[in-house]
C-alpha cells in the first residue's frame, strides 16, 4: 500500500475549479516531486495531504488513514507524522530559532526546556547551522530561514516531509545546498517526501519520480529520465522553460 494516495480529488474556490480529479500515489521512502506553473494548484494539492485543506470530492489517504474523515484529534495525531517546510519558512516571529525548532516538542512531549534546546541544537546542526539558537527569525537570511524551517520540520522525527517550493527565492548556490540537504535528510532519516516546485534543476536532483500538474490535473508521472524524454508537448515545454508552446503566459 502506498504511503500517500490521492484519489480523484476536486477542489473549488468560489467559481474556480482548482483541482480537477487529481490522482497520485507516493510509495513509502519515495521522493515525489510535483512540478507545475504558478496557479496550477500545486500548493492546494500539498495542503490536502496534511489536512490543511479538504477536497470537495475524492479522497486523501495517508498511511492507511482517510485524511478527510479524521476528527480534529485524529488529524493532529496524523500531523505528528509529518514535517512541512513552507515556501517562506513560516517561522514564528515572536520565538527564537531554538524555540521555533523545538515548538512541536514543547507541545507534544514531556521534555524539559533544556532537553528541547539540546534537541533543537542537534537538528540545527543537521541542517548546517550553528550558533543561531538564540537569534530571532528576523535576524536570519532567506537561506538560513529555510534551514531553520527544515530543522523544525524534522524535529519530531517525521515519516513524511512536505516541501513547498524549497528553493524559491534563494540564490543558485544556496538553492543547491538546500537540494543536498533534502537528499541528505532522506538518506539519514529514510523519510517519504513530497516536494512541489517549478525549479527543474531541483526536481531532477531530488526526485525518484516527478509528476506534472497542469490546470488541476496530473498530466504525466515518471522518473526524472522519463520526464526528460517526454512526448507530451505541455510537459516538454514546461521542463525546457520555453515561452513558445501550448502553455501561454497569463
Amino acid at each position, binding site marked *: 500500500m502506498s504511503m500517500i494516495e490521492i484519489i480523484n480529488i476536486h477542489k473549488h474556490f468560489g467559481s474556480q475549479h482548482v483541482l480537477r480529479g487529481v490522482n497520485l500515489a507516493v510509495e513509502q521512502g519515495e521522493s515525489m516531486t510535483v512540478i507545475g506553473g504558478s496557479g496550477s494548484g500545486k500548493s492546494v494539492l500539498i*495542503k490536502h495531504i*496534511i*489536512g*490543511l485543506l479538504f477536497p470537495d470530492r475524492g479522497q486523501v489517504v495517508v498511511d492507511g488513514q482517510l485524511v478527510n474523515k479524521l476528527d*480534529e484529534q485524529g488529524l*493532529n*495525531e496524523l*500531523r*505528528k507524522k*509529518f*514535517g*512541512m517546510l*513552507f*515556501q*517562506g519558512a*513560516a*517561522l*514564528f*516571529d515572536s520565538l527564537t530559532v531554538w524555540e521555533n525548532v523545538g*515548538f*512541536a516538542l514543547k*507541545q*507534544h512531549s514531556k521534555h524539559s526546556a533544556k532537553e528541547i534546546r539540546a534537541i533543537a541544537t542537534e537538528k540545527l546542526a543537521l541542517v548546517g547551522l550553528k550558533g543561531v539558537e538564540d537569534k530571532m527569525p528576523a535576524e536570519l537570511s532567506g537561506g538560513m530561514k529555510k534551514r531553520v524551517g527544515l530543522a*523544525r520540520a524534522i524535529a519530531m522525527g517525521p515519516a513524511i516531509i512536505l516541501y513547498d517550493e524549497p528553493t524559491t527565492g534563494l540564490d543558485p548556490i544556496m538553492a543547491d545546498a538546500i537540494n543536498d540537504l533534502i537528499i541528505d535528510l532522506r538518506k539519514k532519516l529514510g523519510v517519504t517526501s513530497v516536494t512541489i516546485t517549478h525549479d527543474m534543476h531541483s526536481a531532477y536532483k531530488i526526485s525518484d519520480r516527478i509528476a506534472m500538474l497542469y490546470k488541476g490535473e496530473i498530466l504525466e508521472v515518471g522518473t526524472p529520465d522519463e520526464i526528460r524524454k517526454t512526448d507530451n508537448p505541455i510537459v516538454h515545454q514546461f521542463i525546457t522553460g520555453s515561452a513558445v508552446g501550448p502553455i501561454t503566459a497569463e
Partner: protein
Amino acid sequence: MTRWLEALGDKVFLWMTNMGKVLMFLLQTVRWATGRPFYLKNLFKQMEQIGVNSVPVVLTTALSTGMVLALQSYTGFKRFGATSLIGAVVSLSMTRELGPVLTGLMVAGRAGASMAAELGTMKVTEQIDALATLATNPIKYLVVPRFLASIIMMFFLTALGVFIGIVGGYFVGVKVLDTNPVVYINQSIDNTKVSDIWYGLIKSLVFGAVVGLIGCYKGFTTEGGAEGVGKATTGAVVVSCMLILVLDYFLSALLW
C-alpha cells in the same frame, strides 16, 4: 429599481454570511477555551499587551472625559441652580455609559488593531498553517488567549477608567469650579447604586469579547499580503467600534 434591489440583496446576503462566519468563529473559540492544554503563558502575555499597555490611553481618555463632563454639567446646571448634582451626573455617566463605551472604543483602536495586524501577518506568511502542521490548534493557541485576555482586561480597564473619570470630575467640580466637596461626594454616592457599577462592568465584558473576537477573526481571515493586513486592521477597528456602539444601546435597554 431591480438592479438596486439586487445590489441591496447582495449586500444583505454578504452581511448575513459574514455574521454567520463570525458566529462560527465564536463557537469554535468557546469550544477550544475549555479543556487542556491551557496556554497560560500566552494568556498572561496577551493580558499585558491588551491590558497593561492600554492603561495610558484609557487613563487619559477617562480623565479627560470626567473633567469635561464636570465642566459641561456645571455650565448647564448653573442656569437652574442645580450645581450640587454635578457629582451624581459625572458618577452615573461614567459608571453606566462612558466608562465602558470609551474604554471599549480605545481598546478596540489600540489592542484590536494590533491583534488583527499580528494575526493577519501570521496568516499571510503561513505561520498559522505552520502551527496546524505542528499539530497545534491555531484557535486554541492564538485566539483563545487573546479572547480571554480581552474580556478580563476590559473589565479591569473599565473599572480603572470609571474611577479615574470620577476623580477627574471631582477635581474640576471641587477644585476648579469650587463646589462643596461634601455635597459633591454625597450626591455621587447617594445617586450611584452598586447595580449601576455592575451594569457598566457587565457591558465591559461584552465589549471585551467583541474586541477580542473581531480582532482575531479579521486577522485569521486576512488575505492578500500587506494590503490585506492593512484592510484587516482597519476592518477590525471599524467593525469592533460599530458593534460596541450598537450593542451599547441594546445592553443599556436590557440592563436599565
